[in-house]
C-alpha cells in the first residue's frame, strides 16, 4: 500500500497564524523598563561589556533609560553596534551579556539587557530622525560584497567616516540572514527592512541588489574600480549531509524553507508536513522545528547525533523548542531518508554514544522516525567559487573560511572580510563587530 505524504498549507485555523508569528517577546513598556533599568548596578568595568562582541557600554545606556535619556541610550548602543535593534531581538544574551550579569550571579535573574536595548533603539527608530552625520567626503570608494549585518555594518561605519560605499547583494532584498534566515517571530513587522532603511539613510551607501560576485562581476574588477573591498558574503552554501535519500521529495535544506517562510506574505499559504524530522543541533535546527510547529505540523522531532551539552543551540533555545512542543532526541546519527514513490516516508538513524577518546561511536542499533518532511540543518558553508571567478587572485582560505588577521584583512592587501565567511562565532552581533573593525582598518588604510 502506498501512502501519500501529508503535506499541506493552512493546517491551523486562519486566525492563529498571526499570533504564532508575532513577536515572541513583546517590548517592555516604560514602567517595566524603568524597573528593570534600576536593577543595573552600574558596575565598574562591567563584565557585560566584555561579554558583548561589539562592546556596547551597557551600564551606560541603561543609565540613560533610567534617567529618561532614551536618545542618549540609543546612541550609546548604535555607536558600537549599528544593528543594535536586531541584536536586541536575536542575540543569545543568555550566553553573552546577560550570562555574566552580576545580578545573575547574585540572584539568578540578570538585568534583561536585550529587552532594554530594544526599548532604547525602538525609541530612536520611532523618533524618525537620522542621528548620524557623515564626515567630509574622502574621495575614496569601497566595495562591499553582501548586504548582511557584516556588510552593512562596515558600509555604515565607512560612510560615516566620509567614504563612498557600494554594496553588492546577490539577493533581491538586503539584510542577509536578518531578512532570510532569523526566525520570523524574532523580527516581525518587516523589522529587518525598517532597520536597514534607518542604517542606509545616513547617505553615501549605494545599495545594489541582485548583483552577485562571481556572476555579475569578479573580484579583480572590484579591486580595479574601488580603493578597498570588504567581503561579507556569509555562507551561501549548505554543508552536505552524506546520506542516501536526500533527493526524495519532502527532503530539503532547512534554510531554503526558512527563507521561503520569511518571504511569505501569509504563513498560512506555506505547505508543511504533518510529521517533520529535523537533522541537526544548532540554531537553524531549533528555528525550523519551532516554525514548522507554529505552521501547524503535528509532530516535530529534532534528531541530533550527540548530547544536549554538545548542541550548538543554547540551553535556552533548546527549552524554547521544547516549550513549543518540539521533541528533541539525542544520540541519533542519520543513516538514510527512506521513501515511498519518490517521497520521503521516514528518517533512519543509528544510536550513538561518546567513545572513550571523545569520538562519536555508532552502536549498530538503528531506529526510524516516520515523517512527511525532513530537513537538513547541519550547517552552512562558505562558497569560495565566486571568489575565484575570472581567474584573478583569490584570498587564501583556511578551514573552509576566508583567512583574515585581527583587523579582518585577507591575504590580499586591499581586501578585508568578516562575518560568517570568516572564522569565529556565527552570530549577528559578531558579524556586526567584524564589519565595524574592518571599516576602521579600511579607513586607516585609505588615509594612511
Amino acid at each position: 500500500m502506498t501512502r501519500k505524504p501529508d503535506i499541506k498549507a493552512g493546517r491551523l485555523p486562519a486566525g492563529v497564524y498571526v499570533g504564532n508569528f508575532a513577536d515572541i517577546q513583546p517590548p517592555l513598556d516604560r514602567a517595566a523598563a524603568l524597573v528593570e533599568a534600576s536593577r543595573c548596578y552600574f558596575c565598574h568595568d562591567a563584565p557585560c561589556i566584555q561579554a558583548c562582541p561589539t562592546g556596547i557600554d551597557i551600564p551606560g545606556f541603561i543609565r540613560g533609560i533610567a534617567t529618561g535619556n532614551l536618545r542618549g541610550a540609543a546612541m550609546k548602543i548604535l555607536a558600537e553596534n549599528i544593528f543594535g535593534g536586531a541584536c536586541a531581538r536575536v542575540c543569545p544574551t543568555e550566553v553573552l551579556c546577560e550570562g555574566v550579569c552580576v545580578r545573575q550571579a547574585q540572584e539568578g535573574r540578570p538585568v534583561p539587557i536585550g529587552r532594554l536595548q530594544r526599548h532604547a533603539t525602538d525609541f530612536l527608530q520611532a523618533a524618525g530622525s537620522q542621528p548620524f552625520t557623515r564626515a567630509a567626503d574622502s574621495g575614496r570608494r569601497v566595495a562591499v560584497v553582501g548586504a548582511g549585518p557584516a556588510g552593512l555594518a562596515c558600509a555604515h561605519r565607512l560612510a560615516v567616516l566620509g567614504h563612498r560605499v557600494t554594496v553588492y547583494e546577490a539577493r533581491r532584498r538586503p539584510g542577509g540572514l536578518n531578512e532570510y534566515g532569523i526566525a520570523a517571530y524574532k523580527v516581525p513587522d518587516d523589522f529587518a527592512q525598517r532597520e536597514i532603511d534607518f542604517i542606509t539613510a545616513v547617505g553615501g551607501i549605494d545599495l545594489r541588489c541582485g548583483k552577485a560576485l562571481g556572476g555579475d562581476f569578479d573580484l579583480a574588477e572590484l579591486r580595479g574600480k574601488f580603493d578597498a573591498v570588504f567581503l561579507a558574503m556569509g555562507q551561501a552554501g549548505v554543508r552536505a549531509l552524506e546520506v542516501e535519500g536526500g533527493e526524495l521529495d519532502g527532503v530539503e535544506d532547512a534554510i531554503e524553507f526558512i527563507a521561503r517562510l520569511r518571504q511569505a506574505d501569509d504563513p498560512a499559504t506555506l505547505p508543511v508536513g504533518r510529521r517533520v524530522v529535523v537533522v541537526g543541533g544548532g540554531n537553524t535546527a531549533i528555528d525550523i522545528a519551532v516554525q514548522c510547529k507554529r505552521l501547524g505540523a503535528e509532530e516535530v522531532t529534532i534528531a541530533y547525533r550527540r548530547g544536549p551539552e554538545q548542541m550548538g543551540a543554547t540551553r535556552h533555545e533548546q527549552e524554547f523548542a521544547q516549550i513549543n512542543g518540539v521533541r528533541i532526541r539525542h544520540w541519533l546519527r542519520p543513516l538514510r531518508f527512506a521513501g515511498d514513490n519518490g517521497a520521503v516516508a521516514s528518517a533512519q538513524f543509528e544510536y550513538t554514544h561518546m567513545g572513550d577518546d571523545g569520538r562519536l561511536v555508532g552502536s549498530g542499533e538503528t531506529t526510524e522516525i516516520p515523517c512527511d518532511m525532513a530537513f537538513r540543518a547541519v550547517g552552512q558553508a562558505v562558497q569560495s567559487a565566486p571568489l575565484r571567478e575570472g581567474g584573478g587572485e583569490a584570498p587564501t582560505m583556511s578551514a573552509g573560511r576566508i583567512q583574515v588577521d585581527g583587523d579582518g584583512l585577507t591575504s590580499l592587501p586591499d581586501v578585508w572580510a568578516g562575518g560568517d565567511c570568516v572564522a569565529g562565532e556565527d552570530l549577528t552581533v559578531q558579524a556586526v563587530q567584524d564589519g565595524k573593525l574592518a571599516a576602521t582598518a579600511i579607513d586607516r588604510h585609505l588615509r594612511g
Partner: protein
Amino acid sequence: MADLRCEIAGIKSPNPFWLASAPPTDKAYNVERAFRAGWGGAVWKTLGEDPPIVNTASRYGAMSYNGQRVVGFNNIELITDRPLDVNLREIKQVKRDWPDRALVVSLMVPCEEDSWRRILRSVEDTGADGVELNFGCPHGMSERGMGSAVGQVPDYVEMVTRWAKSHSRMPVFVKLTPNVTNILAPARAARAGGADAVSLINTVTSIMSVDLDSMAPTPTVDGKGSHGGYCGPAVKPIALHLVAQIARDPDCRGMAISGIGGIETWRDAAEFIALGADAIQVCTGAMHYGFKIVDDMIGGLNNWLDGKGHGGLGDFHGAALTNLVDWQDLNINYELVARIDQASCIKCGLCHIACEDTAHQAIAVSGPGPDRRFEVVDEDCVGCNLCQHVCPVEGCIGMQAVDNGKPYMNWTQDPRNPMRAAE
C-alpha cells in the same frame, strides 16, 4: 508577647503607633477605619476657625527613586477644609466609640488669645484626650501668620502654649517645624510655656521638582507651583536628629516627645523610641500603602521586643541616647579595615571604583573579566566604610576592628588638636 502599651503626656494607647494630623485623620470615616486596622491613636487633621480654608488641585508631589515610588512626599495642602462643628461632632463620636484609643486634636488659629480660648473650649467638650498646637505647617498658613510663622519665633511658641495650658485641662502637645536653625529654641519655649509634649517633625520646606516641559514647579496648579512641605522616608534622618537633640537637652527634660517623620515600619518606630520618643506618628506611610501597614508595625515590634527579651517599650526607651555623643567625644584611636567576603562577591567592582575615584585607593583589582578579584589593601584603608555602602550584596563587605592596642582617646585629648586644653 511583649507589652506595646504606651503612655505619653498622660494619654494611654494600646500601642505607640498613631496617625499624624493629616488627610488620614481628616474625618470620622478615615479615623474609624484606622482604629479598626489597629492604630493606637490619631491626631485629628488640624482644625481652624470657620470659614474653612479652600485647597488647590493638584496638591501633592512625590519623589521616585530608581522606580521606588514616594521615597519623599510633598504637599501644598492646608488645614481641614470642613466646617469646625462637623469636625467637633465627629471627634466626639469617635472618642465615644473608641475609648481605648488616643485621640488628640490638632489646632491652628490666629495668634490671639480669644481665638485659642474659644477653640480649646469646644475641643474639651468632645472628650478628646489632648490637643496638638500646629506650629509647623510651612506653607499657606504661615503666610497668614500661623503654622511655622509661629513655630519659628520662640516667644510666640511660649505665649500660645501658655494660653493653651491656661484655657484647658487637656495635655498640650506642641508640633514643631524643622524649618529653624536650632530646634532647641522652640522646644525650650514650648517647655517654658508648659507644654506636656512636643511632636516633631512637621514637613520640611521644599520644592519637589520642576516640570521641564511646562517650566513649573510640582505640584502644579494651573501651570504654577508653590513651595510645599516635604515628608516621607527621605526625611527620617532629619527627624531622628531633631528628636534626639531635644531628648538629650537638660532644659527639655520632663517633656514628652511624639516622634514623626518618615516612619513606615516597626524598625523606624523603634529607632525613634530608642532616641527618646515616647510614641510615634505616621502620615506618608499610611498615605502610600493604606492603614494595613500597622499590622506589621505591631507584629514586627512585638517580635523584636521578644527577641531582645524586652517586656515593653520602657525597656529600650532612650537606650540609644547614651551612645549619642558629640563628635569630640568619639575615640580617635579606633581603627577599622574593610573586609571583602570573596565567596559572596559578585565582582561588580563598585567598591573598587568608589574607593579608587573618591576615597583612598585601597581596593585593588586583579585578574581578568568575570574572574577578577577585589582585595583591600590594608595599609591604605582608612576605614571610612564607603565601599560597604556601595556594595550591593548585603554582608559582603564588613568592617573589621583593628587590634592596635591603643587606649581610648578623644579629640579633646589628642596631641594633634591645636585647640587642646592645656594639661
